């Protein structure tokens, strides 16, 4: 009798496991497919990308990736018999994106962490109102501020400058960085810091020897979050840049109007662009998952 029951229970468990795996596979396929297709398309020639029905098996080519940066001037070839490869200048866009992201994140993080620590430990007057204010800036639709800032920047000469964008991104990310890091610092027990004080460390040492190591996880999550925000930012980059300082998102969006576009090439650009983000998540996955929800939950209380 017991055997029969165990069998039934065992069977139910197997069924359940199968269902779980099945659902998981479907979910993963649904969410990963466009990215897979994107990478796949980036490895197709123009003709292959335009095939009907869509190709699932084809001969991959990396030509698109090269084409991002070098344009083949086949017309010139006809005249001179040479295949010239001219730079497209696309590397400027990538460079701009990188510079702007790196700078603004670096500044926002440094200032943000220090500020968050002081808010957490010393709690100067108005800390809570400031936190609430920070939360409410998240509610602000970017477009509302975009219009006046566009005019400001033009008149102040910040238009089409690296500094202008860096300044903007830093200021937009700083509140969030402070907010998140403060909640992480709040989690560090005061006792440990007091012990370090008694053991002979002055408050500065206590900060970077004791407090900071405790929040490394949160710091990783915050930085990851900020990077994604800046790297992918579009609206302000669109409004405030010209060719010299243009970032990649604007370049990608610029392909919209073209007719008969080379989807393979566009896919390659996008693949290249989202690659850092993908790498980032695989590196920081443990931190990001905990940090994304953890930080915001704490702050909401």
């Amino acid at each position, binding site marked *: 009798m017991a055997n029969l029951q165990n069998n039934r229970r065992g069977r139910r468990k197997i069924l359940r496991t199968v269902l*779980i795996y099945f659902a*998981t596979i479907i*979910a*993963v396929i649904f*969410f*990963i497919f*466009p*990215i897979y*297709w994107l990478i796949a*398309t980036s490895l197709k020639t123009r003709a292959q*990308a335009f*095939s*009907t*029905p*869509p190709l699932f098996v084809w001969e991959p080519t990396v030509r698109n990736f090269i084409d991002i940066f070098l344009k083949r001037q086949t017309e010139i070839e006809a005249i001179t018999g040479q295949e010239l490869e001219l730079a497209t200048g696309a590397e400027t866009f990538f460079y701009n994106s990188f510079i702007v992201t790196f700078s603004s994140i670096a500044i926002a993080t440094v*200032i943000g962490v*220090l*500020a968050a620590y*002081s808010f957490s*430990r*010393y709690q100067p007057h108005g800390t809570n109102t*400031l936190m609430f204010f920070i939360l409410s*800036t*998240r*509610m*602000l*639709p*970017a*477009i*509302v*501020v975009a*219009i*006046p*800032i566009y005019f400001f920047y033009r008149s102040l000469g910040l238009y089409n400058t690296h500094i202008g964008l860096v300044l903007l991104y830093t*200021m937009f990310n*700083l509140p969030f960085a402070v907010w998140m890091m403060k909640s992480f610092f709040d989690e560090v027990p005061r006792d440990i810091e*007091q012990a370090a*004080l008694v053991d002979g460390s*002055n*408050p500065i040492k206590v900060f970077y020897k004791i407090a900071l190591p405790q929040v490394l996880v949160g710091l990783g999550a915050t930085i990851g979050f900020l990077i*994604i925000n800046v790297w*992918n930012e*579009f*609206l302000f980059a669109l409004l405030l840049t010209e060719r010299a300082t243009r970032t990649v*998102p*604007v370049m990608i*969006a610029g392909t*919209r109007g073209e007719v008969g576009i080379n*989807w393979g090439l566009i896919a390659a650009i*996008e693949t290249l*662009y*989202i690659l850092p*983000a*993908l790498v980032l*998540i695989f590196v920081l996955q443990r931190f990001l*998952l905990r940090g*994304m*929800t953890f930080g*915001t*939950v704490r702050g909401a209380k």
Partner: protein
Amino acid sequence: MTSQPATGSRILKIFPIILIFPAVALVVFLVIFPLIWALGLSFYSYNVLRGEPPIFVGVENYYRLLNSLDVWRRFVLTGQFVFYSVSIEFLLGFGLAHLFYNQFRGRRLAITLVTTPLLVAPVAVGIFHRYLFDATFGIYSYIAQLLTGQSVRILSQHPMFAIVFMDVWQWSPFMMLFILAGLEAIPKHMLESSEIDRLSPLAKFRYIVWPTIKPLVALALLFRTMDAFRTFDTIFTLTGGGPGTATEVLSIQIYRTAFQFFRTGEATALAFIFLVIILLLTNIYLRLARRE
């Protein structure tokens, strides 16, 4: 119990505040000041192209906007978009959270994979879905054709579906993360005692699961709703607001008014109405959440 450091570190108490000061000042400069300026501008009629100085028109911009059927239609459209997107995201996120709540091999990898859409640049998402939804070459159109037997022109016939689909694809994992975090916060012993008491799944949900995850769900819904209202990048790149004005949500309309038609005064007025709507909604939402 707030512990105050000893006297010697009073300097260090002031130091960070000095540091924050320029930061706060700049935030004020880049947020408050523009807002006030924009508010002021909304009372003027200003067309950059015309080259004339702005003309003060008082509340005429607002009056005209609020009385325009067109504008109200856009409100409704935006509302529709938000409603469809957020509700589907919630359902999907809910289901996924429960799925991933189970422990199984490869779970961590699966979660990582499922959350990748969150990292992809919205611009890239928009542009690439143009390809995916392309009537002739897009693979989604192809699949739709296989399923329905007729050729479907998603972008022209069902633009709302397209933009909702994109949003759902990108942001459902967000909901999932929050709800999953909530599920994992449920104390183990409560679950165990519910096993012993043999609670039905429904009762278990109502009394144990729901109360614990409620604050996180509320927070996730709040964030996502606010963000959905402000969606710009994906829709701009996928449809640009079209075909025609079929997907012209508020943020896109404001953009167009300001930078395509150059009716800046009107645009800022519309932007402010937009801001007010969001603030109102947030307020209502928080009040509802607090009452529970």
